[in-house]
């Protein structure tokens, strides 16, 4: 069988497994799997920027969190229907991306990283500091789940809802990275000047990638607000941005499946380690250092190396 056929078989098997999952495990793990799905989407959205366009953002939590907060503010403060708040949240995330992108895209490399980081911290500081609106550190409970003809209030039905949303979003991203636009992004990642010379408007491509990336992060953020029925400033905090970054790098930047695997692993580890010790941040730091030193191209990179070594034999 060709590699393409194998990956198709793999995709069908994974999908079947994901659909059958609630029948196989306890509800607690269905909840954990829902979180894995949401963060898989978040990591994939960051990879549009990091892996495909070559722009390392350290502030991706801003777009995730602004969507969560939009839902919470509309539902809790304004009494808007929870389902109606969903598109508003996506618009908010994309709009924030459209606002920050021109600032961040003034720079590259380390400056880009610093600027995205600093801008995200501004959003965090507003959510943290504006107590009358956001309850500050206490966060906002009371977010309801949307009602689309059936209730999403139990773990299993929400899992299927998240699976459907994340699935559709992942397919959209797959279509984007395989389109001529996606190829142009990879060209820009390799060499901006060459793409410029070929007549591509590099800035516009990067801008579009930035906004799209923010948009998909917003979908993840909206789902997470529904999932927890709660929103807090930690959704916007640098630790959240950092987790997304390590999910992408652990899995393997420049693919979509890599970040999804990385996200599932990090969510699982966080859950597992948090049950043993309070020092998740310490362990996260160690994971960072170890992954960077031992597997700089992520698990996918290790896998590719392994396949190449086998084919040489």
């Amino acid at each position: 069988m060709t590699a393409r056929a194998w990956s198709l078989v793999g995709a069908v098997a994974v999908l079947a497994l994901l659909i059958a999952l609630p029948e196989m495990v306890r509800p607690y793990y269905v909840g954990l799997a829902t979180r894995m799905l949401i963060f898989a989407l978040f990591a994939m959205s960051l990879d549009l920027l990091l892996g495909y366009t070559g722009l390392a953002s350290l502030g991706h939590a801003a777009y995730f969190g602004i969507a969560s907060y939009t839902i919470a503010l509309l539902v809790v403060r304004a009494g808007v229907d929870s389902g109606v708040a969903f598109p508003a949240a996506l618009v908010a995330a994309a709009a924030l991306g459209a606002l920050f992108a021109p600032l961040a895209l003034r720079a590259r490399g380390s400056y880009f990283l610093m600027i995205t980081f600093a801008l995200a911290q501004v959003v965090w500081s507003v959510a943290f500091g504006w107590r009358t609106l956001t309850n500050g550190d206490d966060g906002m409970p009371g977010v309801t789940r949307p009602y689309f003809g059936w209730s999403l209030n139990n773990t299993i039905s929400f899992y299927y809802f998240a699976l459907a949303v994340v699935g559709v979003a992942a397919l959209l991203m797959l279509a984007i990275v395989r389109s001529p636009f996606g190829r142009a992004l990879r060209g820009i990642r390799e060499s901006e000047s060459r793409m410029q010379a070929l007549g591509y408007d590099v800035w516009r491509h990067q801008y579009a990638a930035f906004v799209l990336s923010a948009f998909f992060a917003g979908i993840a953020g909206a789902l997470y607000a529904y999932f927890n029925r709660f929103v807090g400033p930690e959704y916007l905090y640098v630790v959240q941005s950092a987790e997304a970054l390590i999910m992408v790098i652990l899995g393997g930047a420049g693919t979509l499946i890599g970040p999804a695997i990385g996200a599932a692993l990090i969510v699982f580890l966080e859950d597992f380690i948090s049950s043993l010790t309070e020092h998740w941040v310490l362990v996260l730091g160690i994971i960072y250092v170890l992954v960077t030193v031992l597997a700089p191209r992520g698990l996918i990179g290790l896998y590719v190396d392994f396949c190449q070594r086998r084919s040489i034999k």
Partner: protein
Amino acid sequence: MTWVIHILNGVAFGMLLFLLAAGLSLIYGLMKILNLTHGSFYLVGGYIGLTVMQLTGSFMLALGIAVVAIALLGAVIERFFLRRFHLDELPQTLVTFGFLFIFSDLSLWIWGGDPLMLNVPHIFQGSVPMGYYSYPYYRLFLIVMGVAVAGALWWFQEKTRLGTMLRAGVDDAEIARALGINVSLLFTLVFAVGAALAALAGVLAGPVLSLYPGADFEVLIFAFVVVIVGGLGSLRGALAGALFVGIIDDFGKAFFPQFALFTVFVPMAVILVIRPTGLFGRR
């Protein structure tokens, strides 16, 4: 008169920011490493100083031990974790990020979650009368320290042999190496000095800003704003940016307390639009 007080406060805070940003900037200028562990060097340095001060009661000893300890820590991190990724920006940043988390959690473990305040050293207790107001000696001491360190760094860079080597390394590390300068040693040295400056800032900030979990991330953001405004890799930029941010921040806190960070970030955004590499930055 309140204006004078605000400006003095801003300059004092700006001097602390200068110590931080100078190290960040020197390290980036020579090695192109964006050192996120800089926030940890500040906080852990401050905490070490606090512990030494509690044990011995000597502020000078607290400064000395914290600076030496953090310099050694910096040297170890550079030698064993960063050198292997020479000029590969993303992995270097990730490693320094990992250490930021590691030290953040470890210091929470060791020194707890409550804000801790260093005592103002005896000789700097009290304040200078200034019309209706009075101004604490210690903050004036901060300003003097900042000016002294800025002068020393300038002298080191421009007038000493090692400084000349450093400038050569910043301009072109390959050629500097070919001319027989031990650039690798220079890297470790500069990283250690940068870390030491951050620790110095941490101990000096202890009696004014106090030390608490999360301060590492907070000062890092301020240092970022400083180097974004002033430009990475330039001492002049670090000084100008630090004074600018220090003063703006003080006025912002006084007049718009709810949106304190905004008053710093809006000018940053404006400068970014006009000059993406900062006022004194180089490409």
